[in-house]
């Protein structure tokens, strides 16, 4: 390891612009002659559109154009597409109703865009929108998933029973048989609460049309500009790739919510051609709450069966998953292939069966949010096993240890389709227990008790599947795209390197970590490496950043491109050194003839490639630039154990996290500082889900948590500092860097660790479960319900 290479805690290069206020986010871009778009959105959850009168708005001061769904429809534009087709257990494809850019015929959720008002200023657009007359016939809102399936009102005609698909995975007969013959069965009903991602930068989109060349540019807050180009160009606006540039500059966080192609992106692009001027839309936060895709929102019933020796023999899980009003880009894949496949967790479970029913409701579409399916699976497993430990009277850590897949069982074929390539779970458990001082917990509980406080400790051992995923596999599972990644390594004549990567950094620090990989492989200074991302005009192709895939997939593409550069360099070096290419070695930035001191620096080779005076020109092209597309061979499987310790005030029901310990196996690590930062951030999002965050709709489908005044996110004084250990771990066996991905682990492992700790603290009241978010009110009510129940 060098000071700048793989494994070094290099300080981030991108920080300089951010700490000085020099970042360039999409809203910082203003184009000459630009107009401003304001979206008038549905104020109700479900209604038939009788009439929309835009005449007064059209003649309001500063208004350039007003568009409705009818205008968009008349132009032949398609709907917002879904990128994943899930097939029901009866063999039928999922129901896939059209998702219009602007509502046509019906509005289907609060926030559904209905009219786009474009004016010289945002204020004029906003003022004019108030002159639009929307004549809506309200229909009964479909909000609750269970009642949605029982008939009545339908979100879409195509799905009268509001069922999008009914999917299953695993062996139902074997699972039922094991449950029937079990020594013990633990049952649990779980709510995985609906979350609103809330990246701190709201979404922004600017559409620009150049009449002279008939080119379009979309500036947008995206995690994957090439995917937006593909979806919007091919499916919505029929713009061929070579006429459409999508550019996502600095992006202020994503957490999944900026993966998807959104209606607003299509509208501003479409409108820019109609009015021949750039069209800019900036979401305000209230708009974000009702238009960014939400996350989670599952209801599950779980049954976990044990034999007499406390070994898990089966797991059965039935889940309702909320899709919201329309299918967002990846929505169908989240509760299915990113969820059911993780239900083995870290345990040997001979039989697993899961059934998932996806439900349309009159709510904002639900899609991937940090973790996406895997937090839901982990919550199911880890809550249930801790409840089982309580019922069986055994220690929650030891029950996990007893059931762990053993190191000699890898590669491990789970009963739910996936094969874990590698892992070793006990070291993470042991490390987390050591960090948490697990052994001395009961003393701390007693000490807290003496102060009138309730202490609890919770363990969660997570596994996740990252780096989505082999294209042939995801294709078989319903993906409508490949999930490889691309990288170009452009060696400039003076030996500096520009990397064009299809991965997108919106907080992950790729400008540092990817440069570390280059510096390490080429033996050059990190200062001579530039990482370029986010612009479809510069980068050959890319599938973007989500599912903790950047280093595992994008980094692998980068390594393969670097290897091609090194190999070509060998041929150039062989010519200059008058040796056979087979005798040339490359190390520490120099090409050397084996066993001699004859050597050429990498920079000399680069210069020769571009000034090919003395060059094997008959057999080798000049230049030094290589591109690689890398298609992953499997998912990667990071794993770890988190331990949370809480103290609850029984008088108020408020929970304080007094200690949080995390031990993770991410395989090889490029930059441990950045990896730990990812864990911190993920854990706090997980703590947010467990303790405070909750998207609440009333029975009419009104979003009650529509601002930061109502939707509670963790603040600095809600959380402690953490004890985090990144283990040497088990390197991934099937990618060139041996890396696994670390972006989502915290958000996956933290929620069950927190809830397990809370339930542990409350066990003296006979409480065996608290649903997320475990607010003070919920805990207080649970505590105060118990004595009355006992008295009755």
């Amino acid at each position, binding site marked *: 390891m060098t000071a700048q290479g793989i494994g070094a805690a290099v*300080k*981030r290069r*991108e*920080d*300089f*612009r*951010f*700490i*000085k*206020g*020099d*970042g*360039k*986010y999409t*809203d*910082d871009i203003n184009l000459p002659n630009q107009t401003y778009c304001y979206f008038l959105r549905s104020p109700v959850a479900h209604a038939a559109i009788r009439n929309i009168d835009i005449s007064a708005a059209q003649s309001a001061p500063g208004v350039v154009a007003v568009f409705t769904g009818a205008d968009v429809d008349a132009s032949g534009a398609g709907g917002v597409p879904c990128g994943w087709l899930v097939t029901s257990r009866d063999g039928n494809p999922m129901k896939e109703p059209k998702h219009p850019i602007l509502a046509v015929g019906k509005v289907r959720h609060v926030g559904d865009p209905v009219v786009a008002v474009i004016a010289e200023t945002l204020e004029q657009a906003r003022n004019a929108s108030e002159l639009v007359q929307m004549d809506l016939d309200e229909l009964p809102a479909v909000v609750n998933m269970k009642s949605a399936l029982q008939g009545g009102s339908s979100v879409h005609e195509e799905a009268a029973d509001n069922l999008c698909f009914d999917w299953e995975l695993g062996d139902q007969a074997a699972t039922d048989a094991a449950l029937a013959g079990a020594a013990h069965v633990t049952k649990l009903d779980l709510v995985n609460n609906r979350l609103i991602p*809330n*990246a*701190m*930068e*709201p979404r922004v989109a600017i559409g620009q049309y150049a009449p002279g060349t008939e080119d379009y540019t979309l500036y947008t807050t995206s995690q994957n500009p090439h995917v937006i180009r593909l979806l919007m160009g091919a499916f919505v606006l029929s713009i061929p790739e070579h006429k459409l540039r999508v550019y996502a500059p*600095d*992006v*202020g*966080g994503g*957490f999944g919510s900026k993966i998807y192609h959104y209606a607003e992106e299509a509208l501003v692009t479409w409108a820019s051609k109609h009015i021949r001027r750039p069209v800019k839309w900036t979401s*305000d*936060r*209230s708009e974000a709450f009702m238009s960014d895709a939400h996350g989670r929102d599952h209801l599950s019933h779980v049954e976990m069966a044990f034999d007499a020796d406390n070994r898990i023999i089966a797991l059965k899980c039935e889940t309702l998953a909320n899709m919201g009003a329309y299918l967002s880009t990846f929505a169908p894949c989240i509760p299915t292939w990113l969820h059911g496949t993780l239900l083995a967790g870290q345990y040997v479970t001979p039989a697993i069966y899961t059934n998932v029913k996806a439900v349309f409701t009159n709510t904002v579409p639900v899609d991937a949010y940090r973790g996406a399916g895997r937090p839901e699976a982990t919550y199911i497993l880890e809550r249930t096993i801790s409840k089982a430990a309580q019922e069986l009277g055994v220690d929650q850590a030891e029950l996990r240890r007893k059931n762990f897949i053993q190191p000699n069982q890898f590669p491990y074929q789970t009963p739910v389709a996936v094969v874990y390539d590698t892992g070793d779970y006990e070291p993470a458990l042991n490390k987390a227990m050591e960090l948490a001082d697990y052994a001395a917990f009961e003393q701390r509980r007693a000490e807290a008790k003496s102060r009138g406080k309730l202490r609890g400790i919770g363990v969660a051992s997570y596994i996740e599947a990252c780096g989505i995923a082999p294209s042939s596999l995801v294709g078989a599972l319903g993906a409508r795209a490949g999930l490889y990644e691309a990288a170009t390594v452009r060696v400039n004549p003076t030996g500096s390197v520009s990397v064009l990567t299809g991965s997108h950094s*919106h*907080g*992950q*620090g790729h400008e540092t970590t990817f440069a570390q990989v280059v510096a390490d492989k080429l033996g050059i200074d990190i200062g001579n490496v530039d990482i370029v991302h986010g612009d479809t005009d510069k980068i050959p192709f890319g599938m973007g950043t989500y599912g903790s895939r950047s280093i595992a997939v994008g980094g692998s593409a980068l390594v393969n491109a670097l290897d091609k550069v090194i190999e070509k360099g060998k041929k150039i070096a062989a010519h200059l050194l008058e040796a056979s290419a087979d005798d040339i070695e490359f190390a520490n930035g120099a090409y050397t003839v084996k066993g001699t001191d004859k050597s050429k620096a990498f920079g000399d080779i680069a210069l020769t490639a571009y000034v090919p005076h003395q060059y094997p020109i008959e057999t080798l092209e000049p230049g030094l630039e290589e591109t690689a597309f890398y298609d992953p061979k499997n998912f990667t499987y990071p794993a770890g154990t988190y331990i949370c310790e809480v103290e609850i005030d029984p008088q108020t029901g408020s929970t304080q996290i007094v200690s949080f310990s995390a031990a993770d196996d991410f395989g090889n690590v490029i930059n441990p*500082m*950045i990896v*730990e*930062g990812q864990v*911190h*951030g*993920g*854990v*706090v*999002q997980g703590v947010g889900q467990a303790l405070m965050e909750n998207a609440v709709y009333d029975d009419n489908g009104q979003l009650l948590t529509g*601002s*930061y*005044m109502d939707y509670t*996110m*963790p*603040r*600095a*004084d*809600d*959380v402690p*500092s*953490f004890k985090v250990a990144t283990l040497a771990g088990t390197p991934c066996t099937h990618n060139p860097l041996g890396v696994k991905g670390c972006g989502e682990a*915290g958000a996956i492992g933290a929620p069950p660790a927190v809830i397990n700790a809370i339930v542990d603290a409350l066990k003296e009241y006979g409480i065996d479960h608290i649903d997320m978010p475990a607010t003070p009110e919920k805990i207080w009510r649970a505590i105060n319900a118990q004595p009355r129940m006992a008295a009755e």
Partner: protein
Amino acid sequence: MPTISLQVNGKTVSGEVQGNTLLTDFLRQNLGLTGTHVGCDTSQCGACVIHVNGDSIKACTMLAAQADNASVTTIEGLSQGDDLHPVQAAFREAHGLQCGFCTPGMIMSAADLLSKNPNPSEAEIRSWLSGNLCRCTGYHNIVKAVQIAAGQMSGQRIAAE
């Protein structure tokens, strides 16, 4: 429209503003100082924190007209030329930022804390920063950065004395 005149990052600027123009919009639109960010519409996120007459305030909650004759420092004016303010340097040192969107407000808020309380406890840091939301870092490294900056600045004061 009223005309306002104020000091921004040491320079006198003036401009016509509507009565309802927010200070954030004046900074971002009129002056092109896009380091001050807007992350919400309820004065909750703190991405827009700047200094007005030496105090940190949320620029989204102040009218531009109210800043007439004021002395304003934004993130762009915090460093002295190429010399980073100790809080800026510490945020990089401690990996106290990821996507960078909350960072200007977070740094401006922390700088004000250290000007008023040079040696804050962890609890005091967390309490002070509770008006600034960060979705990326989990606050762990932000707190560490403020602690590093506090040490750095007290070292500078001792050296100066």
